Structure formats: C-alpha cells, structure tokens
C-alpha cells in the first residue's frame, strides 16, 4: 500500500471565493489552503454548495469570483499539470453499465500512468469485487458499482484526491475500507478534499469546513 506519489508538493490555495447560483450566495469570502497531509471534509445541508465548491477547487467550474492557485500559479495557467496531479471523482461514478468492472476500470485509469493490467485486477480484488470482474455492471448492485469507481483509488498516484460523496451506497465493510484508504493517503503525505455526510472519525489531520452559514 505504500505506493509512491507523483509529486512531493501539494499546495492548493483558494482566496476570497464567492459563488452565486440563481441569485443565491452559496459562499463568500471563503479562503482555504490545502497542503501535504491534509484531509478536509466539506459539510453542510443539501444545497449548501459543497459540490459547487468541490468542482471549483477541481478546476471544473470557472463561474466564480476569487482565485484558486495550484503551487502558487493561477489555475487557468496550469490546469493541465494540475489535472494530472489531482484525482477528481464526482458523485456520478462514470461507470458504463454494459461493460464489466475491469473494462470500466481500464477506461477510468487510462490516464493514471502506465500501470499494467495486473494492477487493475488487484485493485478490483481490493474492493471485494473478486469473482465479479467479468460480470456486466448492469447486474451489480449500486454499492458494487460505486466500488468499481473507487477501485481507482488503489491505482492512482495523484497526490490530491477530490471526492464527492464517495460513501454513497457503500456497506459497512466498504465504508471501513474507504476510511482506511483516506488514512493511507494522508499517511503518505497526500491530501484529500471530500464532501460527505458520513462522520469521519479517528483520521489525524481531519479538518471540517461547514458551508451554508452564508445564506
């Protein structure tokens, strides 16, 4: 599990962020900094802007005021470098139902370095999909489909993970596994930004950021 990370330095900083949706201010004057070993959990009620903030930090959304910098450079100038150093997983799993887990994982991990197929098979085994590798995802449960997407965490060397509601549909064992992954990522000096209603406990370095007060 001691996979090396692609790069040593993590420095994602956001300054004076303000974001509006439908004439409603989701957050304003929001600043945060994320460096090695950080685990930031965004909390707040539904509709508070957690996903919006996450997409914005991932560089997927440019519709905001303020500034996001990666290693001191404005996001717009270094997006393609940044894109290879952070792993973004949206609340949609990007899993094709007609394909098998291994076929899905091959696509999901196409950009995660030159890993051999063995790594992918091992990743599926790690998320307890052993024996389901060749079953179309159509026949898998929602939790198992989520596991297919999460198997990517076992392959990725990205130092920064940005995860949107990764605990959705997971059972108790899956939750424990994912918590261990987050812990391992923090332990190897990576960083994680996560939205979740799940209470993350016992992970050192956990910071919580509550949204929804501005409204």
């Amino acid at each position, binding site marked *: 599990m001691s996979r090396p990370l692609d790069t040593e330095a993590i420095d994602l900083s956001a300054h004076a962020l303000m974001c509006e949706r439908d004439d409603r201010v989701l957050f304003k004057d929001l600043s945060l900094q994320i460096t090695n070993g950080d685990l930031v959990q965004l909390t707040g009620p539904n509709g508070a802007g957690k996903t919006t903030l996450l997409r914005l930090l991932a560089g*997927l959304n440019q519709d905001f005021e303020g500034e996001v910098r990666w290693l001191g450079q404005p996001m717009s100038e270094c997006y393609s470098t940044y894109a290879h150093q952070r792993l973004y997983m949206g*609340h949609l799993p990007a899993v094709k139902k007609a394909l098998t887990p291994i076929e899905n994982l091959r696509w999901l991990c*196409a950009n995660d370095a030159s890993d051999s197929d063995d790594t992918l098979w091992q990743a599926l085994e790690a998320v307890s999909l052993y024996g389901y590798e060749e079953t179309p995802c159509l026949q898998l449960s929602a939790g198992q489909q989520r596991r297919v997407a999460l198997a990517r965490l076992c392959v990725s060397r990205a130092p920064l993970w940005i995860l949107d509601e990764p605990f959705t549909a997971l059972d108790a064992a899956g939750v424990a596994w994912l918590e261990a992954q987050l812990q391992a990522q923090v332990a190897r000096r990576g960083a994680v930004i996560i939205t979740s209603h799940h209470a993350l406990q016992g992970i050192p370095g956990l910071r919580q950021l509550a949204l929804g007060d501005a409204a």
Partner: protein
Amino acid sequence: MSLVVATIRRDLLLAARNPGEWANPLMFFLMVATLFPLAVDPDPKFLSRIAGGVIWVAALLATLLSLDALFRADVEDGSLEQWLASGESLYALALGKALVHWCISGLPLTLMSPLLGVMLHLPNDALLPLLLSLAVGTPVLSLLGTVGAALTASLRSGGLLLTLLILPLYVPVLIFAASAVYQAGIGMTYHGQVAMLGAMLALAMALTPFAAAAALKLNLSR
C-alpha cells in the same frame, strides 16, 4: 492521449454489446430503400434515375437517427465530467467520438450501399461513385453531427432540436453526393462533386471538433 484511445476502444466495445445502437439505423436504411419502389413505381427505368438520391436520403436520415445518443449517456453517467477532469483536450474527444460514430453508422451504410444500388436498378457505372460518395460524405455527416449532439447532450428530448440544427448543414453534402451518383449514372464525369465532398470533409475535420468541444464545455459548466 491514452484516454482518447481508451475512449475509442470503450465506445466500440459498448457498440458491440448493444447491437441495437448500430443495427437500428442500418435496418432503417434498408427498409426505406426496400419500401420505396413498392410505394412509388417499380419500373426499372424510373428507379435507375432516382436510386442514387433515394439511397443518399435514406443514409442521411439513418445517420440522424443514430446521432441523438452520441454524448447523452456520457453526460448522464459522469464520463464527460471525468474527461474534463483529466485535462485532455475536448477537441480530441470530439474527433474520437466522430470516428467511432462513423465506424458504427457511416461505414456499415457505405458497405451496404452497393447491394441497395443493385436492388434499385442503379446503373452499373454509378455503383463505384455511390460507394465513393458515401465513403467521403458520411464522415462529414458524423463530424457535423457531433456538434449538434454536443449542443443537445444535456436536454431530455433534444432529438427534434438536433434535427433542426443539423439538417440544414447536411443539405450541401446531399446535393453534391446525389449529383455525383446521378451524373455517373448518365455517363458524365463526377470527379468535381467527389472533390467537393473531399473538401467538405477536410474542412469539417479541422473545424467541427472545435465547435463540439465548446458545446460540450457548456454542458458541464452548470
């Protein structure tokens, strides 16, 4: 770059798993061409004059039929978001998507067309030009189609809108292609028309992916 290859491979695999995706337009193409003589006039002389046009109209409508779903599934299951997150160029994605679409729609139509040509009494001299015009013309249809499909990808029922957007752009292709087949049938030269189609293909390959990429970005920046 590896993601482009992976996407092309994945989409071809998806098409292989869902034969309806490529078989339905092909069936439609076949049915239109088969029913036409029954409804209008089975006289070989009459048919041989209109065969090229009928085959081209059927091919164009069959292509339209298969465009609707081009990006919708990718928007709905999050694949498109993953693409944007990967930092790969959307230009390459649009080009790759057009290539896959052509492989599962335009290519089978092209290969099937000589058979329909014989069925509709197309003059023998026009069979090669028909094949040639479809081989050069249908990629243009796929490329233009990606723009419309990208614009309507996040609409629930974008089918009609897509048709309205794209059909006018298909008209020049239809005119030049049908005229090439017709001219060849009456023993005249058709190289000019095919050259025009080639020029359209070159232009579409260079420009449409930009438009499709911009449209895809719009879908995601909600």
